Structures are given as C-alpha cells and as structure tokens.
C-alpha cells in the first residue's frame, strides 16, 4: 500500500514518475479522441489501426539498421508504425466502400493480415545480428521498464498535440458523429472530417504503442468513452469526462504497476479502466443498471398502489402480496387488510378521478388531452380546476366508500 501511495504521489522514482505522467496524458488524449470513434459507431476500426502498426515497426527497424542507424530509436519506429497504420486505415475504407464486404469484415481482414505480416517481419529481425536485443516484442503489450526520458517526452508532446487537435475539431467531429447527412448539408466535408478523426485515433495509437502496446491501446480508446456515456447525455461532457477517466486510469494504473513487481503497466491500466466501466454500468444515475432497477420498482409500486386503491373503492378483497405491502407501507390499510381512514379517502379520490376521466372523454373529443389517461397521471396535471369542477357537476356530489 505504501509503495502504491508513493507511486501515486510521484515518489517511486524518476522512471515511475515519467511513466505515470506519460500514461495520464496518453489516457486523456485516448479517452477524448476515442469518444468520436464511439459516437460514430466505429469503435473497432481502432483495432485494425492498432494491429496495422506492427509491420511498420518491423520495417522501420530494418530500414534504420540497413541505413546504419540505431534501430531502436523510438521516433523512427513510431514514424514507421504510423505509415503502415495509415495504409491499414485506407484499406479498411477502400474495402468497405468499393466492395460488397461490410466494414467489420474489412476490419478483421486488415488487422489479421497486417498483424501476420508484422510477425513475419519480427521473425526476420530476430535472425538479424542487431535484432536480438531489439525488444520489438515490447510493442505487442507495451514495456515501460526501459523507458527513457526522451520516450516520455515523445509521449507527452504527442498526447498534448492530440488533445489540442481534439479541442479544435470537436464541433465538426461531433456533428459528423451524430448526423453525417446534416453535416454534409451544412457544407462540411464529411470524408475529410472522418479522416481527421481517424488520423487522431491513429496518432494516439502510435503514441501509446510503447506504453500499453498495440493489442491493448484499443481499450484506452473505447472504454473511457463508453464509461463516460453512462454519466451524461451531453456530447461535450462525454468528450472531456472520457478524457479525465482515461487520464485517471492511466495514472492510477501506472502507479499500481510501479508499486509491485510482475504488474505490467498496459494490462493494469486497462483493468483500472474496466473497473471504472463496471462501476458505471451498475451505478451510474439514469443509465446505470441499478437506476433502471429502482425506476422499475418505483413504477411497479405506483401501479400496485393505484390498483389497490381502486379495489378498496370497489370494496373488493386484495390478494396480491405486493399491493398489500405497498398500501400497508403508505398507511392506507391495516395489517388485516381493512382500509384505514386515509386509505378510504384516497380510494374515494381515485374512484372519483376515474369517473372524472369518463366524463372528460365525453366532454372533450380532443385525444391529445384525454389520450394522456394512463391511470398514473393525476387528472389535475391535465385539466384546469375549472374543467374539473365542470366534470364534477356532471357526476354529482361525492359519496363515501362503504356507502355510509
């Protein structure tokens, strides 16, 4: 625990602090830009992009070694990965637009084929004399152990640029995500904006390769956005809360990973993110599972409450257990099932409202008003007191339940 707190407050050493800050920035950039991907319903395109980086890493290494440079230069490797990721992206677009294959088939084809080519290149590199210590396998699952200061700087600058680009492009990208036709009609170039969105995702993927690896970067793009969506209905809020959720997952995940051995950074970040998601899935207000259950129970109680009162008014015995429970809880019946005074009063009111609705349907042929009769909306919400008095005149004086 101490080790974790230490890491959380940047006390676990220089390298751990670098990783933590880098992960937070990357998490923010990934969460914010991934939101558009999620809103555009193209979350898994990022999976194709991420897997398509692998051959680029391999080719860049081979090219750099062939030209006599150090093959491990992070900038060079990331530049290479960006090139093949872009090719993969273009191929997904091309296949789903020009052929009859659907986008998911195009995604799957590109990700598996590019990944396969990448693995072939990795096995070639392993046989090269400079390739043994290349450590390119680290790009599969990320490796933060040997992170250099300049690597952290690359991640920090790249992440900040991605956030800045998200901020500048948030309006057109939101518009395209929600209603591409309207965006096109308003004069936006939908394809260009889509391209910008995808480039942003690609940039985040490439930056994240070193930290979380190409298999799990997808999680950093998708999970925060899906989580944020549970808490709000406003797109702007979703973008920035996804960013914050991503940053928190990145930072806390890096801290946990630094606190003990054998806790790989990438998977831990993803699991923190998944924990936030699970919590939101169940406990978010309005959209969460718990909220839905409570809403349903309340509705059920209201229906039983009313049906019970109607039964009291008609002096019918009540057998349903839930109805008895609901009425008893509100002090409308005694435990032996006989109505209390309050219960009789409410029952009379419900019965009278029922008659008022009958009259209302005859007086008003207007369905927009009488159509709001669902048994649960109080009549006072629909008609004015004058109108209700008018209905009462038709019905006559109130009579007490039980004929007394």
């Amino acid at each position, binding site marked *: 625990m101490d080790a974790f707190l230490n890491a959380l407050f940047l006390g676990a050493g220089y390298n751990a602090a670098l990783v933590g800050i880098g992960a937070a920035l990357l998490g923010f950039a990934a969460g914010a830009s991934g939101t558009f991907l999620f809103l555009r319903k193209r979350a898994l395109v990022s999976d194709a992009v991420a897997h398509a980086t692998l051959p680029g890493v391999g080719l860049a290494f081979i090219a750099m070694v062939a030209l006599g440079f150090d093959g491990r230069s992070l900038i060079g490797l990331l530049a290479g990965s960006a090139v093949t990721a872009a090719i993969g992206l273009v191929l997904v677009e091309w296949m789903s637009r020009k052929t009859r294959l659907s986008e998911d088939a195009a995604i799957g084809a590109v990700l598996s084929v590019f990944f*396969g*080519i990448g693995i072939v290149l990795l096995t070639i590199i392993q046989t090269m004399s400079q390739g043994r210590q290349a450590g390119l396998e680290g790009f599969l699952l990320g490796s933060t152990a040997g992170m250099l200061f300049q690597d952290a700087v690359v991640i920090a600058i790249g992440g900040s640029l991605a956030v800045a680009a998200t901020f500048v492009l948030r309006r057109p990208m939101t518009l395209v995500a929600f209603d591409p036709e309207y965006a096109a009609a308003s004069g936006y170039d939908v394809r260009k904006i889509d391209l910008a969105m995808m480039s942003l995702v690609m940039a985040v993927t490439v930056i994240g390769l070193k930290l979380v690896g190409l298999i799990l970067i997808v999680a950093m793009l*998708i999970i925060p956005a899906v989580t944020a969506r549970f808490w709000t209905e406003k797109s702007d809020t979703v973008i920035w809360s996804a960013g914050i959720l991503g940053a928190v997952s990145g930072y806390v995940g890096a801290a946990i990973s630094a606190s003990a051995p054998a806790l790989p950074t990438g998977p831990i970040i993803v699991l923190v993110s998944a924990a936030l998601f699970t919590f939101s899935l169940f406990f978010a207000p309005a959209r969460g599972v718990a909220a839905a259950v409570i809403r349903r129970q309340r509705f059920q109680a209201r229906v039983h409450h009313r049906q019970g009162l109607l039964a009291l008014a008609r002096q019918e015995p009540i057998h349903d257990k839930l109805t008895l429970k609901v009425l008893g809880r509100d002090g409308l019946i005694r435990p032996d099932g006989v109505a209390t005074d309050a219960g009789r009063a409410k029952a009379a009111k419900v019965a009278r409202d029922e008659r008022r609705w009958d009259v209302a349907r005859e007086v008003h042929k207007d369905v927009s008003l009488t159509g709001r009769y669902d048994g649960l909306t109080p009549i006072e919400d629909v008609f004015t007191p004058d109108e209700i008095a008018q209905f009462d005149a038709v019905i006559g004086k109130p009579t007490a339940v039980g004929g007394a």
Partner: protein
Amino acid sequence: MGNEFVQFSLTPILIGILASIACALPGNFLVLRKQALIGDAISHVVLPGIVVAFLITGSVAAVPMLLGAAGAAIVAVILIEAIKRLGNIEPGAAMGVAFTSLFAGGVLLLEQSDTSTVHLDVEHALMGNLESLIWFKALGWSSLWDPEALAGLPDELIRIAVVCALVTVVTVVFWRPLKISTFDESFAQSLGLPVGAIGFGLVVTAAVAAVAAFDAVGSIIVIAMFICPPAAARLMTNRLETQVAWSILFATLSAILGYVFAGYGPLWFGAQNAVSAAGMIAAVSGVILGLACLFGPYRSRIGVGREEAI
C-alpha cells in the same frame, strides 16, 4: 528430399490446412451475418482461458487448456451480450470493452503466476508453433502405411482433424436452418426456427474451431482464416454453396503457400532461417483477399455505378 518433407513439413501443412478449413467454415456465416469480429474477440479471450485453466490444473495438458479456452470464449460472448443489453451500447464498442479487458486480465494473470517451467507465454499464444509440430517417427512416404509411425503423429494433428470433421458435420447437418436464418431472420422465425439458438450455436462452433486451431497455430491464423477466405469467396459468387467451396479452396491455398513461403521462401533469397509460418499464412490469405477485391467477379455492391465500383 521426399523423406525429409514427410518428417518435417507434411504434418505442419496438414495441421495448417485443417485449422484453416475449420475456421473458414463458420467464418462464412459470421461474415454474412456481419459478426466477423466475433472471431477477433474469441481469439483474444483464449489467452485468459488457458491461463486460468493452467492455474487451476497446474499443467499444460491439452484437454484442460481446450476446456479453459472454450469456457473463456463462451464467457466472452455472454459478457458482450450483457454489456450490449444492460448498458444499451452498440455491439462494436461492447465487444471492444469485453475482449480487451479479458485479455488484459489474462496477461496480468500470466505475469503473476509462475510459468517459467512451462511453455506458456503471450507470444506463443499469438504466433503458435506450427513449425515444431513435426512427425518424428516418419521415415518417408511409406510411413503413411506404418501403424507404428502413425502412432507417433503429433496430437495436435489428430485434435484438429477431429474438430475439423466435427465442424464440417455440424455445418452440413444444420445447413438449411443456418442458411435461412443468416439471410432472412424474420423468415426463419416465421418457420419456427430457434433463431437465437442457431446464432449462439454458430458462435460456439466458431469458438470450438478457434480454440482447437489456436492450440496448434496461434491466434493470428485463427482471425485471418475466420475472415479472409470467406470474405474473398464472397466476392467470387452469389451462391452460398459455391462461396463455401471457394472459401475452403482459399483456406487450403493460404495454408500450403504460406507454409512453403515461410519455410523455403527465405532460402530462395539466400537467408538461412525460416520465418513465422503463422504470420505468412495470414499474409497469403490477405493477398488472396486483395486479389479478390480487385478482380473478383462479384466484388462490387449492387446498385453502385460502374465507374464508382472500379
């Protein structure tokens, strides 16, 4: 040459072919149902499955591994469905959330547990070890009739052969309901077919194929074979029967060419070492799909103008 071929290359090629066909068969229906990425999700969650199986049984024997992987695949499918329904989230994102989380859990478990004594790591899970599945006891082509040598065939070959046969039988037996429910779900429903059960059965079949193939060839081939041969076959014909035949042909071709290129290709260029056969098979299937996209007779969407389509 012939004797060496039987000993070192015959069984890997056969395993590659059988694994490819076992994945391509259900892949046809997954591609048509726009569920192609289920294969991707399944192949990712196989890792946590085998790690959990290893932690429970303490061995890397095949049966617990397969059961663990199949269990994980089913858990993943249920989880995706639950996230989709409970959270009202679109399928792609639900899938992305579920399989990445499970995969991350698998990697963490693997790092936490002591697997230094056994051959169990992420790279093996991704790439498989097709090259090492050789037939030690074979002396030449005559060994094919020698019961003693046949007893020494790698277990992986027998397992994948059984699974491939199983997948084929299931596909043939359920052909009509599968076909009807894939193309017109409402019509299938009106015929009284259990549409939900058919969909789930297809995913389970795919999971079984993926798990058995994964055991021998790693997850790259699994994803590639679920999608590339059926997708390429889709561009060759408008008939499902013909499409399935094309997909089997493409899968076989990918496996053979991929293995040959990986094993002998580098030698042609003067290099000493072979490259990853699994990766090469995936790459060949991609080339086949690329050619089908460019030249397949039924490649364009119906209703797209000629100029646009090219």
